[in-house]
């Protein structure tokens, strides 16, 4: 390959080196294009350079251009080409380097600018050809390759929102195979906006592919995974408590193998279990925080600690975590809400779906003899509001039940809206059951205060501004309902232009939320990063 100047040479070499290291193959067209661009730049320079330097380069050019011209026909495999290209590049660079120092003083600022511009255009053109090739080839190109061209920082996207990328799926399959966990296959047609997420069917549980007396995965975890995928354990708090309960059983049945340390081995044992639970149902933010806490506790166990002592310590840690972060936090939030007159006599409170924390607050307020009534808003397909309604009416609270389509009709009566949260994101957005943001929006339009109740262990440092990027797709068959013997959506898979979408979560912007009640007090939505920072400092 001919190199016109030192400035271009290393740049071209870098590009080619990068291309070679990323495993991309330079096709004939690309090589020809690069050669053409170099020739063009050389021509620009030749017009401005001295004759002596031109003669020097011209001498080199036929030599080196003849070489690559003969190279492609002689090389049967394309793989040799990238290795040959840099091989010729260093050959020609020292040759041209000898001539270049003589050229340098003759180049003006304008010439340098022109060269730089030409180089940038050449790089842009070659980048486009590269991008075209990645679209065609199913090579080992990583999704971060394009961003890394633009910036040095590599951004890693989580696997569960890249389901439409076959390489990520391959990596996931390999990882699960290593951990001996079956891969759950997606089901049904996915709406295009959400095709980057997993969608599973409840009728194909993961246990189909496991051996029945499960030996690879602890039975308590298999049971938990089944309960997650069937929806028997649903709700952020319930899932975390059940997870910690299962981990307690795992720790109890654990024995350290020979030559291993409990602090390292137990964490490795937990990894396949967490993958398994993730396959059954994507982990919630609260579960993620609980897992982080346990892993930290396990790795903090000193190596001289005896096994029984260590296990007891861990079990106590789990107990205290549940006690502090879930039970006592709930009590504190209820106390806060009631004493600070957030629930006063004559209030009409609107709740959405079934949040264990909000139900707890309302029941406690009723016990303290506050006079209020509740409006329960519900939505399909989960119809969780019915369960919330049952719990409140059992206590004796007078309730009204509406569907979410009636929310704007009922809002003029409402004095406050209490919402539960699945997680609070670092930019102040509230992630909760789908429909929550709608209610917050309508409440804002009616000037009704919206209060979100959330324990601090659900705060996560993710940032999201829309509900598309990261969400959960539930079983689309849940949307099918049979009324009066007819099932209109039966056989929806056979309709090519029909897709069923069953979203689980959505995010509410902080403008619609007036107050967040946590066990640390009542904070505005935008103070979430402060709480997170303080928590990190504590730990």
């Amino acid at each position: 390959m001919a190199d016109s100047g030192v400035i271009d040479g290393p740049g071209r070499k870098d590009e080619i080196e990068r291309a070679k290291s990323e495993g991309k193959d330079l096709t004939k067209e690309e090589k020809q294009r690069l050669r053409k661009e170099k020739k063009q730049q050389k021509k620009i320079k030749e017009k401005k350079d001295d004759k002596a330097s031109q003669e020097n380069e011209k001498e080199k050019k036929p030599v080196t251009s003849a070489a690559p011209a003969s190279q492609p026909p002689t090389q049967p495999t394309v793989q040799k080409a990238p290795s040959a290209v840099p091989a010729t590049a260093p050959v020609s660079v020292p040759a041209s380097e000898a001539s270049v120092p003589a050229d340098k003083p003759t180049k003006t600022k304008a010439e340098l600018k022109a060269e730089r511009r030409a180089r940038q255009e050449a790089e842009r053109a070659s980048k486009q050809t590269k991008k075209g090739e990645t679209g065609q080839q199913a090579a080992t190109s990583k999704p971060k390759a394009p961003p890394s061209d633009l910036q040095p920082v590599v951004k890693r996207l989580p696997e569960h929102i890249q389901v439409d990328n076959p390489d990520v799926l391959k990596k996931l399959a390999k990882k699960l195979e290593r951990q001996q966990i079956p891969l759950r296959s997606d089901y049904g047609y996915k709406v295009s906006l959400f095709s980057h997420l997993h969608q599973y069917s409840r009728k194909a549980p993961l246990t189909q592919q496991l051996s029945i007396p499960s030996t690879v995965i602890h039975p308590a975890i298999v049971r938990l995974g089944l309960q997650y995928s069937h929806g028997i354990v649903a709700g952020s708090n319930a899932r975390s408590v059940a997870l910690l309960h299962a981990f307690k059983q795992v720790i109890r049945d654990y024995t350290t193998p020979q030559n291993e340390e409990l602090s390292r081995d137990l964490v490795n044992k937990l990894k396949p279990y967490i993958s398994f639970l993730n396959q059954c149902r994507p982990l919630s933010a609260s579960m993620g925080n609980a897992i982080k806490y346990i892993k930290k506790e396990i790795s903090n166990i000193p190596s001289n600690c005896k096994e029984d002592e260590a296990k007891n310590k861990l079990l106590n840690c789990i107990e205290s975590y549940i006690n502090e972060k879930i039970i006592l936090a709930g009590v504190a939030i209820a106390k806060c809400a009631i004493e600070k007159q957030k629930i006063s006599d004559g209030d009409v409170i609107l709740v959405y779906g079934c949040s264990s924390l909000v139900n707890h607050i309302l029941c406690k307020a009723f016990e303290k003899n506050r006079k209020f009534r509740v409006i329960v808003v519900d939505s399909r397909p989960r119809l969780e509001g019915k369960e919330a309604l049952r719990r409140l009416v059992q206590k004796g609270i007078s309730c009204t039940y509406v569907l979410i389509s009636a929310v704007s009709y009922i809002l003029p009566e409402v004095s406050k809206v209490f919402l539960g949260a699945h997680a609070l994101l670092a930019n102040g957005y509230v992630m909760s059951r789908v429909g929550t943001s709608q209610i917050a929006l309508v409440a804002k339009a009616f000037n009704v205060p919206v209060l979100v109740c959330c324990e601090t262990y659900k705060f996560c440092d993710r940032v999201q501004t829309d509900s598309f990027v990261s969400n959960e797709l539930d079983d689309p068959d849940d949307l099918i309902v049979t009324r009066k013997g007819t099932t209109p959506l039966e056989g929806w898979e056979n309709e090519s232009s029909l897709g069923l979408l069953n979203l689980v979560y959505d995010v509410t912007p902080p403008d619609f939320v007036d107050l967040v009640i946590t066990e640390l007090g009542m904070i505005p939505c935008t103070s979430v990063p402060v709480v997170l920072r303080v928590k990190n400092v504590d730990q």
Partner: protein
Amino acid sequence: MELQAVLMAAGGGSRMTDLTYNTPKAMLPVGNKPLMWYPLNLLEKVGFEEVIVITTKEVQKAMSTDLKIKDVKMKLDVVSIQEDGDMGTADALRHIQPKIKTDILVLSCDLITDVALHEVVDLFRAHNATMAMLMSKAHEFTETVPGQKGKKKTAEQRDFVGVDKSGKRLLFMANEADLEDGLSIRKSIMRKHPRMLIKTGLVDAHLYCLKKAVVDFLTENKSISSIRGELVPYLVRKQFSKTVNSQKLKDDTDDQTQEKNDGPLLISSRDEPLLQLAQERSCWNDHRGDMSEAYHGGKLRCYVHIMDQGLCCRVNTLAAYIEVNRLAPKLFEEPSVHPSADISERCQMGSDSIIGAVCHIADKTSIKRSTIGNFTTVKEKVKVTNSIIMHGVTIEEGCNIQGSVICSNAVIGRGADLKYCLVGNGQHIEPEGKREGELSYQTEQPN
């Protein structure tokens, strides 16, 4: 360890004595494999590594010589019990109670099925059930049974099974024999489950997942002797009994002897408060429309998985035996002719016949829809249709065998004509004998 498998192979086959008076039921050949191989194969396919086999000494001896059973890769822990027949299945469980360390999966040796076992076990796991069982829709037997005059349907005692509207929770289970005054259902059940479906056309596959607590309960209650006849209806009834549902019983104190007996049944797992907390916080309920929590607060739950497709057959009558010989080979992808069989080229063999090992089939024979056992000799000009020939049988020339069952080591004389007959072990049918719809036994007179 999650589940231990227990195979009950001590049954006597009381409803098909014609076949079992010489061969124990567990070793009857079905498709040239012993009957008990089928449930063992099911367990092996699913991933079990050990099975506790409860059987008699006779069967144990036969097992040690049988090739197919030696092929089984699982570890078989054989427990032999007395043959007098007084020990019921629940008594057998009580007998092996020291070996039981976790929940158990109880199978009967006469079950041939291709069910996806995870369906039953998932119900057991997900709902933390005390019992989960398998049932199947019964199919009519179409083949003519030897010894039955015409298509007389034996008056089998029907089972009445009540399930809730999801079809998974078992609410009611009784046999026709126990319901003399009619079927009565308690109001408490109707209040909790207003929609109940009662089915009668179901076959109990005798496949039960039981909690370990049930086995402990059996050791304390020695009066229960049969799983199917007594234990299962008892558990189903106990789901709705008042003592089980009352809140105070969570600490299972032993105030009354009744509670003491049920104590083991209510212990589900340690950390009960955490599970309770998780259930409280979860927004799930198994029913809608009344004020009670999930499962109506009941600790004891029984579930059933009803198969509507696929094969599920219990081989406890002659009709079932004949039916299953027709269907069972289709479950496996094995060649219908054993490689060591010597079949002459002029033999007409249908594609749905099975020939066993080391057989000699001579010329001009016609074998259609039949099973021929190992070491059998079939001479020329024999026509075998729709029949089951067991091991070591000799069939002389010119015989015509239709719709019959010939047991092991029998000899069928030349030119015999058998229609819908059952020939017992080691029997000789005289040459030119003509039998129709008869059963030959050890008795001297051909009857």
